[in-house]
């Protein structure tokens, strides 16, 4: 399996009510606070740290994007709009990499 970065792509059809599910073809492991994900389809490794790692953990709890947003607002000192854009940015990369999909 190769270890290459993956191009970024925005996803626009996400809403507060949206739920995401982790693709069955993605293996992940937590390494010293970083979530390392291996996509079985793309054969590439991805690393999520800090907020990205937290988003991944919240996805495993089956939270909606709105719930995720609220949880992260409680945990981080960040304006709501900035957080939403950051979330979309991370999520769009994960969707593009076929590691997650809209539920």
């Amino acid at each position, binding site marked *: 399996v190769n270890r290459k970065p993956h191009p970024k792509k925005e996803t626009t059809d996400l809403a507060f009510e949206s739920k995401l599910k982790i693709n069955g073809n993605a293996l992940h*492991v*937590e390494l*010293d606070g970083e979530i390392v994900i*291996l996509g*079985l389809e793309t054969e590439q490794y991805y690393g999520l740290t800090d907020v990205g790692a937290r988003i991944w953990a919240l996805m495993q709890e089956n939270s909606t994007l709105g719930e995720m947003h609220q949880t992260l607002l409680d945990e981080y000192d960040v304006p709501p709009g900035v957080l939403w854009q950051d979330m979309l940015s991370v999520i769009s990369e994960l969707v593009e990499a076929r590691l997650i999909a809209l539920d």
Partner: protein
Amino acid sequence: LNDFQKLAPADSMQVLLECLSVDEAAGDPSVLAGACPPVWRSVVEIAERHRIVPLLYEQLSARRQVEGLPPEIAQDLQRQSRSAILDNLAILANAGLLLKDLSRVGIAVLPLKGILLAGKVYPKLGIRGMGDVDLLIPRTQLSEAVEWLRANGFVPRYPFTIEQECLTMHHLPPLYGPRGMVLELHWTLVPPSAPFSIDVESIWQKAGAGDLLGASCRIMSAEDLLLHLCLHATYLEYLSSGLRPFCDLAWVLKAYRETIDWSGLVETSTRWGVRRSAWLALNLAERLLRAPVPEGVIRGLMTADTEPEMIDWTAQQLLNPSSSGGKLAAVFAPNAPRQRVWLFSTQIFPPPHEMRPAYPDLARSALWPLAYLKHLGVVLRRNWRSAWSLLTGDAQARADAEQRQRINRLVEWQEAGQ
């Protein structure tokens, strides 16, 4: 094996075992607190030889003890662990894809050992390493599975026929697949020549439907898994795999402790003829790693001819392996001259099923006598130093050979039924 055969300072091994224990609450914190940097360096080196660095790092991290390590040792451990986990993740990813494909084409699969333990038993994916992927396939589907694998890019280590291999081996030759995958298809758990009565049919019947690495497959019952691991730990690899098989046992015991049917396990071990292996392996897992084994079970597995020293012999071989080869030690054991000649000749002229995997190119061709000639060279090259040391009465060589002879005796004892 040669790398593994180095002496380990006793205190380093004590620290390592304390780190690997699956019952932290029963541990002695002073063992770790008193370890100095050279001891920690030695602990990491021993863990490398036993192929358990990621597990060591995970245990230290989970107990927040990494912070107490000398920084350069903590960094080295973290780097080695991360690298191994990423490599293992890749093996598991490819194994997951293969499991899905085999399920799709209707081939029944029961994952064995590494892949199952890594995916289901250990606390984190990837901390249990594996060199290959071992799968149990019904004997009746072996041909179909091999055909599918060949059509999908898998190449055997040497040409074979299933019928011939199954006469002598419990698995087919390794199949090398795409992306560096090494696959071993088993049809039973031990070679047909081993004097055990493994009931493969009942293994399949007891296995439940499950999910591993995102694929649907059958999952071996905890009891059968434990017995298979016991055989691996104390019999199949002649105690040459170090602590890892015992870590496997300890984690299975910890993971399934609430659901293990102990009376069923004892009954199956008796039926299979593997009670001695089960007693030895479970006893050591409990003593070395504080694996949760009910005391009554260990007592119940004991046979009348069990000797208390056997545990010490096994522990000594695990923690401080003999550098003597098993066959060489057998030749130099106190035997009748005729027996020695027979043992020597079996070492020089092993049966064809042992020659085929070792010399795949020669053993199958018209030049097969050359394989024996090559084997003679290999045996002489590997053993002449030890043989010379033994012949000249070297005390260390003699002690090593005697230790190995005790292991040979343990293997024979396990083969002796109930």
